[in-house]
């Protein structure tokens, strides 16, 4: 991503090189492939032989690889921004009248460009380790970067062999075919980069896991190096998924935000496994236990990212999001998967038994709770995997391609989340090794009391509802208040003078703040999911100018429809004046857009949000006699879904700021042993309360 400012893209001067920028980009990719090959082999051999010079190749190679791929990415960006229609990829996905933002976003809105973004980020993570991983022992660093380069090599080869983004078109057409209008949206412009930062980011955990298996050693220091990368990837993935879901909510036209589509599942699986990894790495770090499991999780998390890529690109599953499908690509990626995942799992089978088991713990303990967390998250991941692949299994067994959809996931995935969220509150209250459950019951009772109040409030305001809606509210409140009750315990709120509590709160490590925010954020998001699942009200109605529609206490007066012209579309824009209890709230202007180049029509919904509910209005077709179909929805609590995701992301970011995780800071240059000793004193969560 850092490549955007590179001179080729930003320069814009009519230098001699301008006409051959796409070729330069192509050569840069070829060079990057060669550099990756060197980076994947030499440092590995160096680490095996103990040759410091060979190991030292890894760092500069990683930086060079990133520089070259960044150059290629910038070249592609340049072609898209200046609308160079001699490049096939630009012709297929762009148009000269398309707004600049979408010219840029169009670079990753197609298969070839998104693969270039994929390897750019992959190399970017490698370069970050090279630049900031000064405290890493040289053999570990060499091996990590070598493994990272192997993945890079595979994908660069894939791009060059099957998906050349720089292919020229001669003669160049006068203009392009434009990007799918569904994708021309600010939410979706940013969705892929964050998604990729997320699941490509898990490559770092993968590389560390493979390096550890080669070395045959996993210890708390290893976990401390893995965690920030995992956390960074998790934070980006959370944001990426939330952006995608938000996009679906306001573009697809009826307020749905999650469809259990294979492509959505492909991003959810690494998220679930990554969340499990984030938690099991804590156990490795603090207690030196669960080591071989954590290594396996690190491999699986990235493997799921790779499988997701395969599913999206190969066309083995039908999906709305699927890119243009090409069997040759499918075969290539499958080969890549087999080598990368099969190879690493085989290495795991051979080497993991040699990893020494660590500290023991009683079932009721912080470790026990984290094991439960891992069990539930892995089961949930497996459930999503089975639900996603079930149609493929049927297909292979001769039954064709089908979709199992929400009915399956509602019955399998949702029930797993109930115990998970329940345990999420109890776990942080427990001590390591052996916890006294009776001792935390008092605080749990407080959380349960607050959750009961929330359920009663929901009953009062909605006059009942399905049982699952109340379970959802209870879980949301349980998670949210649980996080803050645990936090209050740490700072001894109301047990010591307030000033002391504030001081303690300010002194809490960032990691603790991060956990509190992330857990509370999940609670907020669950409230949003519950609202959107159970309390939506809607009306579909034919209206004529001058008529009003009512929903959930709002009155919408239809003023009429007028034609408007956008940069690359024509639209019919309806104007509705919204009032509530006689007070004017504002205008809602949903549109029916017709994209002139692609010929597609798209409904652009208008949303009014109060912070606790959304009023969602979509314009349908006219009846030819002055009447228009409108779809009107009232979505209570849905804004909290996005708020909750934002709070979770904030939790991840805050936690990244924690001193002991700060990857780049020179301050980390302590002896690993000293750091390991310092950690329990400074950070062990829960120590504040007792």
């Amino acid at each position: 991503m850092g490549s955007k400012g590179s001179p080729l893209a930003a320069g814009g001067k009519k230098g001699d090189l301008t006409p051959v920028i796409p070729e330069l980009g192509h050569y840069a990719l070829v060079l990057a492939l060669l550099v990756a090959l060197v980076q994947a082999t030499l440092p590995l051999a160096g680490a095996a032989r103990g040759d410091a010079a060979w190991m030292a190749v890894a760092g500069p190679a990683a930086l060079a690889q990133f520089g070259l791929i960044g150059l290629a990415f910038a070249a592609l960006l340049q072609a898209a921004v200046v609308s160079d229609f001699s490049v096939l990829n630009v012709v297929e996905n762009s148009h000269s009248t398309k707004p600049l933002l979408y010219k840029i976003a169009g670079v990753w809105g197609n298969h070839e460009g998104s693969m270039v973004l994929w390897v750019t980020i992959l190399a970017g993570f490698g370069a970050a380790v090279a630049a900031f991983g000064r405290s890493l022992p040289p053999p570990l660093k060499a091996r990590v970067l070598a493994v990272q380069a192997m993945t890079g090599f595979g994908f660069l080869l894939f791009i060059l062999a099957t998906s050349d983004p720089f292919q020229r078109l001669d003669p160049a057409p006068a203009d392009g075919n434009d990007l799918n209008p569904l994708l021309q949206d600010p939410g979706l412009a940013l969705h892929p980069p964050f998604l990729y930062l997320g699941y490509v980011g898990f490559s770092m955990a993968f590389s560390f896991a493979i390096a550890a298996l080669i070395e045959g050693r996993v210890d708390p220091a290893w976990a401390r190096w893995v965690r920030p990368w995992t956390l960074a990837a998790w934070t980006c993935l959370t944001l990426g998924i939330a952006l995608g879901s938000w996009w679906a909510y306001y573009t697809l036209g009826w307020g749905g935000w999650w469809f259990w589509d294979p492509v959505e599942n492909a991003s959810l699986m690494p998220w679930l496994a990554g969340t499990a990894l984030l938690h099991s790495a804590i156990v490795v770090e603090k207690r030196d236990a669960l080591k071989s499991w954590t290594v396996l999780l690190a491999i699986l998390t990235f493997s799921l990212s790779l499988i997701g890529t395969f599913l999206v690109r190969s066309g083995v599953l039908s999906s709305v999001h699927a890119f243009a499908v090409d069997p040759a690509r499918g075969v290539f990626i499958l080969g890549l998967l087999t080598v990368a995942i099969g190879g690493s799992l085989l290495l795991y089978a051979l080497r993991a038994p040699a990893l020494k088991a660590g500290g023991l713990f009683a079932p009721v303990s912080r470790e026990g709770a984290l094991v439960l967390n891992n069990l539930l998250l892995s089961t949930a991941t497996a459930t999503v995997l089975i639900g996603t692949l079930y149609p493929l299994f049927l297909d292979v067994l001769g039954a064709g391609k089908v979709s199992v959809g929400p009915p399956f996931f509602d019955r399998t995935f949702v029930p797993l989340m109930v115990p998970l969220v329940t345990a999420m509150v109890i776990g942080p209250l427990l001590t390591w090794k052996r916890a006294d459950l009776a001792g935390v019951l008092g605080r749990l009772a407080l959380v349960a009391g607050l959750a009961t109040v929330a359920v009663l409030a929901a009953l009062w305001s909605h006059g009942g509802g399905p049982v699952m809606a109340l379970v959802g509210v209870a879980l949301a409140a349980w998670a949210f208040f649980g996080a803050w009750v645990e936090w209050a315990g740490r700072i001894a709120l109301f047990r010591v003078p307030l000033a002391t509590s504030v001081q303690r709160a300010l002194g809490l490590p960032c990691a603790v703040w991060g956990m509190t925010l992330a857990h509370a954020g999940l609670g907020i998001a669950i409230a949003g999911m519950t609202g959107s699942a159970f309390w939506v009200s809607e009306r579909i109605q034919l209206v004529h100018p001058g008529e009003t529609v009512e929903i959930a206490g709002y009155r919408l007066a239809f003023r009429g429809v007028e034609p408007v012209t956008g940069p690359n579309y024509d639209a019919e824009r309806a104007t509705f004046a919204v009032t509530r209890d006689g007070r004017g709230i504002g205008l809602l202007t949903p549109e029916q857009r017709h994209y002139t180049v692609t010929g597609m029509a798209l409904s652009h919904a208008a949303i009014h949000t109060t912070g606790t509910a959304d009023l969602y209005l979509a314009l349908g077709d006219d009846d030819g006699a002055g009447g228009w179909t409108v779809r009107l929805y009232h979505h209570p609590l849905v804004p909290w879904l996005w708020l909750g995701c934002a709070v979770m992301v904030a939790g991840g970011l805050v936690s990244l700021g924690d001193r002991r995780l700060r990857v780049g800071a020179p301050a980390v240059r302590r002896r690993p042993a000293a750091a390991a000793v310092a950690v329990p004193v400074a950070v062990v969560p829960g120590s504040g309360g007792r």
Partner: protein
Amino acid sequence: MPRWLYLVPVLVFVALVGYFAAGLTRDPHLVPSVLIGRPVPAFTLPPLPGLGAGLDSAALATGRPQLLNVFASWCAPCRAEQPVLLHLARAGVSVRGLNYKDRPEDAVAWLDRYGNPFTSIGADPEGRVAIDFGVYGVPETFVIDGQGRILDKHVGPLAPEDVEPLIRKVHP
């Protein structure tokens, strides 16, 4: 922990790769169903709100062949298939819809958005009638003759190249 347990992940993965590899060579196509040649099961389904009459077994035996398409708003392949169904409907084929395990309001919004090729639609929110038809996923399309007998069944989304054979089946 016994050593062989460590082999489980890689073995599971090998099985998965087998499926993936087979999946790559696969194409959705017509598959036999035990119901072929039999009359459609007896059923009566209510309509989707605002979309005319519902659907019952009598409507599938009107003297001329028809298609019965099982669809849902949550089904991604259905979205891909919808233009094909619209094309069939424009070509004069009577396509009946069976809305499978869906919320009626979602289905209506979805049809509003992706087009409605159906002569009439029966809402099957519980999927009871679909079970009688032997449906195990969506989309599926049944070819039904004038006497209400199932002639053929297509599993998975219809592709543009399926249109000609289907029209020939329905207008022989």
